[in-house]
């Protein structure tokens, strides 16, 4: 890395973080009441105290699992439905109003209805699925519909089998859009799952632990759990970025 890139990619974001923490310190000191705004030191102390508890790892692990399951089901079904819509235009027309409805429906309505209709344990999966699915469906649908028609014609002229056409043409053509869509929705899924856990009071979850800390006015602990959720989001987004890089290198030699 040359000097300019070091400044742009490392130093500049670091300045942002330092600035944020400094402002946080100043505001916390000005307010001076820990239960309203604990200082960064209190939050970090809270975070390290959580690290000593077994419940922390179980909760983070469970939340991660719920996020991934909800996301993966939504992703798989979005791919399936988008492909069906692509090859059967009638199906696309029939499904269109549902897709729009799911997309514009207020998230809170989804949460409340899911709490009425499903068990509290299932709520985080279902909520994540319902909110993420229409976003992914739109992304995948656009990706399938926007494959290069002249290249598609070439695959037909050279009699590509369905399998070859999918793996050598559709998949690599759609990958950039799919992976971008996935990385945006995956970190959004963490937020949704945690929100659903708070409202459904799901056992062994980041959401429930936050809710409990909030009831006892342990603001530092709420922030510590928030930090955990943020780190989880980073972890997922980072992993997906690495996967994206590996896949793009495989297909595009980039």
């Amino acid at each position: 890395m040359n000097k300019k890139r070091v400044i742009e990619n490392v130093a500049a974001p670091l300045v942002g973080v330092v600035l944020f923490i400094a402002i946080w310190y100043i505001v916390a000191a000005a307010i001076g009441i820990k239960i309203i705004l604990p200082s960064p030191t209190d939050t970090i102390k809270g975070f390290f105290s959580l690290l000593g508890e077994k419940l922390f790892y179980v909760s983070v692990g469970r939340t991660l699992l719920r996020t991934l399951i909800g996301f993966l089901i939504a992703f798989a079904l979005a791919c399936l439905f988008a492909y069906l819509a692509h090859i059967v235009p009638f199906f696309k027309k029939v499904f269109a109003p549902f897709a729009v409805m799911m997309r514009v429906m207020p998230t809170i309505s989804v949460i409340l209805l899911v709490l009425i209709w499903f068990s509290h344990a299932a709520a985080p999966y279902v909520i994540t699925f319902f909110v993420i699915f229409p976003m992914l469906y739109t992304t995948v649908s656009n990706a399938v519909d926007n494959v290069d028609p002249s290249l598609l014609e070439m695959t037909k002229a050279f009699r590509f089998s369905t399998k070859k056409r999918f793996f050598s043409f559709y998949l690599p053509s759609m990958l950039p859009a799919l992976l971008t869509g996935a990385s945006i929705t995956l970190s959004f899924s963490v937020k949704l799952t945690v929100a659903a856990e708070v409202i459904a009071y799901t056992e062994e979850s980041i959401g429930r632990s936050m809710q409990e800390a909030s009831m006892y006015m342990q603001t530092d602990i709420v922030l510590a759990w928030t930090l955990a959720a943020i780190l989880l989001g980073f972890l997922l987004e980072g992993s997906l970025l690495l996967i994206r890089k590996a896949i793009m290198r495989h297909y595009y030699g980039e």
Partner: protein
Amino acid sequence: MESNDMIKIQNLSVKFDENVVFDNFSVTFPKNKITCVLGPSGSGKTTLLKALAGLIPCGEFLPPKAAFVFQDHRLLPYLTALDNLAIVLDGKKEERRERAKRALTDMELSEAADLYPPQLSGGMAQRVAIARGLLFDADLLLMDEPFKGLDLALQERLIKYFVKYWQNSRRTTVFVTHSILEAILVADKIIVLDKAEQGAAIIYEKDFTLPREERALGVLEVDALRKELHDLLVTL
């Protein structure tokens, strides 16, 4: 559909909405020869190729397996030149790559093997596309103005390449072009299509037997044929 020395296309019907492009159209292509198809825009030249390749529905006509060289190269951008060739073949990966490698070497394209299409010049990419067409296992080779939009010097070079490597396989070829000169340089047979109310019709058909290496401007037969085709095409 096939006699011994002809590929015969019969009962080809193609309609786009109310527009009849072909109605029970029949044509024969001499086997192991290059047939050039000339004609004004909209006379159905490209549609004929697409119908022959089975890319558009066309009545009871059963399209034969055919290789296609398009106007643009249509190489998959995320595959190397070598893999763009290997992918149209069947069989074991190593064998396919080996055949693809040989095809690139034949076309003097070895240096392009590991390059991706965006890294190739227009002429090189089109040569890879021609190599792909020649490599694909099919009895029929369809070419749709493959040298269109390239500069004149490059066009001439590509025509020479094409003819040279076509001679190795002598595959039955249908070559659509707007250029009279191009047709005269490559064709064994020339046909001219024109649009009529009840679908396209062949209005001119001629075998051209002068050896290709003798074909050049200034040669009597070439100039005569060029004038004949020119006088016919300007009236359409």
